[in-house]
């Protein structure tokens, strides 16, 4: 478990009086592994053949910006402005932040855009990758399935979809609201290569990204995660979808991460 990024998330969410910390904490190992698999120098230079990362569940932006900070893509001065008046670092991912490829926040947008990027990279004959991170609740949006169907049809082998399967949406458990399972067979039947891993195990996520196969298919990595991971009283507790950690809650959370 990556404590360093979690401490950064807690810090900026606390200082900004922001929300969505539970959704951010389930994403940490996914985002960190994705950026470790990107050529950061090409991203910094905005090279046309760079790898691309889209956080489609845009409300996990405190995790995105914190991870980008730890990978040298956001300065500490800028990060301190998160969720504050006049900052470009808001509660949903913004393309006004350098190196953020696409603004998200309305769910079901990142995957179609990522498919477009993958098609564009293929047309220009670049071998870079497109990583799209979606939430499991987000998969209720029909637009995702339009693009999953099309990516499979087009055999976009440069597309890697990572699903943050934390099993909770805003109100309750996905299984009670509208089940999205069985995800593995749904992706597979749409011509994806599927990996089902512990979403807090960076080595497993990394192996799934790096594994060389001959299929030439797009890849879906189902990352089984815990909402609020790393802070005991936030884990699997939807109160922390919105609540901002302040006062004693903050002190307790900080002590757990230390």
């Amino acid at each position: 478990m990556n404590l360093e990024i979690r401490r950064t998330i807690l810090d900026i969410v606390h200082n900004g009086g922001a929300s969505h910390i539970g959704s951010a904490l389930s994403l940490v190992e996914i985002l960190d592994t994705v950026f470790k698999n990107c050529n950061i120098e090409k991203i910094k230079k905005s090279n046309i053949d760079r790898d691309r990362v889209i956080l489609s569940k845009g409300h996990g932006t405190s995790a995105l910006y914190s991870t980008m900070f730890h990978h040298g893509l956001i300065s500490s001065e800028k990060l301190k402005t998160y969720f504050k008046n006049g900052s470009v670092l808001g509660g949903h991912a913004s393309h006004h932040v350098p190196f953020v490829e696409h603004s998200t926040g309305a769910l079901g947008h990142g995957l179609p855009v990522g498919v477009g990027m993958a098609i564009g990279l293929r047309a220009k004959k670049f071998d870079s990758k497109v990583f799209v991170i979606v939430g499991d609740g987000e998969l209720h949006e029909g637009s995702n399935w339009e693009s999953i169907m099309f990516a499979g049809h087009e055999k976009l082998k440069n597309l890697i979809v990572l699903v943050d399967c934390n099993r909770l949406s805003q109100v309750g458990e996905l299984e009670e609201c509208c089940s999205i399972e069985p995800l593995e067979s749904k992706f597979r039947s749409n011509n994806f290569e599927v990996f089902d891993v512990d979403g807090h195990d960076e080595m497993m996520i990394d192996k799934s990204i790096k594994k060389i196969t001959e299929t030439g298919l797009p890849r879906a990595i189902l990352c089984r995660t815990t909402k609020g991971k790393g802070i005991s009283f936030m884990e699997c507790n939807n109160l922390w979808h919105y609540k901002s950690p302040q006062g004693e809650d903050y002190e307790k959370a900080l002590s757990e991460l230390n």
Partner: protein
Amino acid sequence: MRGDFFDKLHKEMKKNEKIFFLMGDTGYNLVEPLFEEFPDRTLNIGVAEQNLIGIAAGLCNLGYKPICYGISNFLIHRCLEQIRNDLCMHDYPVTLVGTSTGLDNGALWATHYVVDDIACVKPFPNMHIYSPSSVESINQIFDEVIKLPHPSYVRITKKSFKENIQTEQINHFVIKNENSKILIISHGRMTGNAVEASKISGKISVFAMDKIKPLDIEFVRILTKNYKKIIILEDNFNSGLFNSFAQIMIELHINDVKAYSISPKEDYGDNVGDTEYLDNQFGLTPQKICEFIEKIEK
């Protein structure tokens, strides 16, 4: 008119490698030459317009200029959030080419009327809206949007109308009758109807305002100076051009001009009919336009 657009597009794609043509399974017997000649820059996304718009945004990230083709009601209404967030928020240079406008689809009925599309996309920052009146206008508009570094929507009617003169500007007089005190401002298919009405009445001028957003304020200023009775004629609810024109008149404090709207009633209706039948029902035929003119002349 669609054929003219595709002829221009074909020529442009030969010399401009940034153009990427995407369609939502629409365009049978029009698009085939593009797919044959440019297999790497053409895609049929299928009946999935939300995906179509998202893919177009993703292609812009790679430096492409996507042209998205579909039936207007699907291309606009189905994916309004994608147009807002993925195109307009990012100010991506995607051109949405919507076929069918107004009541073109006639007896196919209300799901296929395109009468509220302009008002849907008009509030979005960066969006440019065009409604070509004629074949000549299509050429002008194509040349503008292909270079435009912003999102745009071009709504193309199924009907063809030729002015038989080379237009110098997108917005222009189609008929300038020196004796006329009444001006019809129209766009898209309605300009043909306005010209027919002018032939019958002999006392009106017709101005094609084919660029609806951004509206040319200078033209509003000039036209309202020279005409004190202006009819905005459109095959769109009056939330389209009329609404924009009235807004500019208020902003310019123009209070000595009477502006009238001839447009379909804001209702989807419950009976079907061909385009002519519907035009008649909503007062859009040349004859009905003349009757309206007689009323406001008094």
